[in-house]
């Protein structure tokens, strides 16, 4: 190896060592270290916020004991049930209102009116109607996911290029074939956008809905922890909420990459 090459080699090492990835992790890491330092020195008392090290310890303990997985599954089940019903309901309403004039006149005005209600404002009414079991929780999530799906899919169906529909009609497509081959695929990007909003919404509502007298679930864990000032348990649950939210978003993005592979932005990347 020549001298010049050696120099270039050392230069390269010096430049590439702090890559953008390691740089991006740097400041959160410093913050966590400062937080740990604050806890150790007593600046942050555990009553206010548990130390990161004790949060990790608690998380491990809850994981091993099964407390965390069991309650997480309960929460996931609620979100999934509400989401499934909401997506089905929203899609059905949007397809009926999007494809037929009669459906539009019958469904669109009431849905547009109802969607202006903040879903969580209905919590007291739902408790009166459905009691304090699983039903009001799932009903709230259903309501919160129906509207984003409806709005986006309805707009998507109405926004399908009429020229494409006309072209397909000129090749003999009609009725159900036209809907399946042209209208619904054309509305799919809008539907997936709606699904993203619905997922984000279902998460938000889940957090609140779970505080309604639950006997299981992440919300129940948080409520319990609050009563005993267990800030470490609360932080563990918050982190789990965040991770589940990230996971849901990743699922939709993967769905989009496969279902919308035809779009120019995906083709290029």
């Amino acid at each position: 190896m020549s001298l010049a090459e050696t120099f270039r080699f050392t230069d390269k090492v010096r430049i590439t060592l702090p890559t953008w990835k390691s740089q991006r992790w740097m400041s959160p890491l410093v913050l966590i270290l400062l937080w740990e330092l604050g806890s150790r020195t007593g600046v942050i008392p555990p009553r206010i916020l548990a130390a990161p090290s004790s949060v990790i310890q608690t998380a491990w303990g809850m994981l091993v004991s099964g407390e965390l997985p069991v309650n997480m599954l309960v929460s996931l089940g609620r979100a999934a049930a509400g989401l499934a019903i909401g997506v089905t309901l929203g899609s059905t309403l949007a397809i009926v209102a999007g494809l037929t004039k009669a459906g539009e006149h019958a469904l669109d005005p009431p849905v547009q009116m109802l969607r202006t209600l903040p879903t969580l404002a209905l919590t007291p009414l739902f408790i009166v109607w459905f009691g304090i079991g699983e039903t009001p929780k799932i009903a709230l999530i259903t309501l919160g996911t129906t509207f984003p799906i409806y709005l986006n899919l309805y707009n998507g169906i109405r926004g399908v290029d009429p020229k494409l529909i006309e072209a397909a009609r000129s090749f003999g497509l009609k009725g159900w074939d036209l809907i399946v081959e042209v209208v619904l695929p054309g509305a799919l990007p809008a539907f997936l956008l709606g699904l993203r909003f619905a997922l984000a919404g279902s998460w938000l509502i889940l957090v609140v809905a779970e505080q309604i007298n639950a006997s299981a679930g992440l919300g129940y864990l948080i409520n319990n922890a609050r009563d005993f000032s267990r800030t470490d348990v609360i932080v563990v649950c918050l982190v789990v909420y965040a991770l589940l939210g990230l996971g849901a978003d990743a699922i939709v993005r993967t769905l989009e990459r496969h279902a919308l592979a035809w779009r120019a932005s995906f083709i290029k990347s």
Partner: protein
Amino acid sequence: MAQANIHTLNLTRPAAGGAAPVPIEPAVRVRGFTRRFGDTVVLRDLDLDIAPGEFVALLGRSGSGKTTLLRTLAGLDSAESGAVRTPDGRAVVFQDARLLPWKRIWRNVALGLPGADARERAEAALREVGLGHRLDVWPMTLSGGEAQRAALARALVREPKLLLLDEPFAAVDALTRIRMHELVLSLWRTHAPAVLLVTHDVDEAITLADRVLVLDEGRIAAEERIDLPRPRESSPLFLAIRRRLLRALGLEVAAPPAEGGLVAYPTGEALS
């Protein structure tokens, strides 16, 4: 100048042995067709015949009703029964290719085709228009010319009796357009559908068609039968036909000077 009011054909074929001529059933027959949008009359008492296998070009300014006529023949615009008769097998190529972006090219061509061999037929049609290497790509990755080739394949795979071309080459570049002209002529010779080409481009009409019609205010204002052998661009008669058609479209073009003068060769003058 052709007779402005004779645009239906005397469709007869001399029968063998000197018997009476046998009438040929036209592919398209329009009689006294009027189309209104509200108070505006777009097509006025229109008569038109297109013979099987005949290539007809339809010229006209914007708003002359030519697109409405094409859409009527395509069945995309309602027509009262009786006034318009078209064959069952019809296919349209639009100005924008109108491929479904979420279907791969061969699926676009096979759209609505019945039968288990739809894929093979679609692929054969794509190979015929020179897209055999692009069967599986997404429409958005095609160039404008390639998209129009795919649209042509999608029309031809149905073996239409009537092929309707709605300014299909207006959005492609000049070189591609020349290649597309050759392709359309060769496909027309192979499949022999009756063709109605709607275009703004007088030269394109003369280059391709057996007969050129000029539509003005909902009526056929001029007709020009073109008997020149193809390719026609270098024929001296080309310019004379071109001048007559442009005049019918309301555009006076000076006659080319006699021998000796420097003549600028007119290229692809389009009307808008």
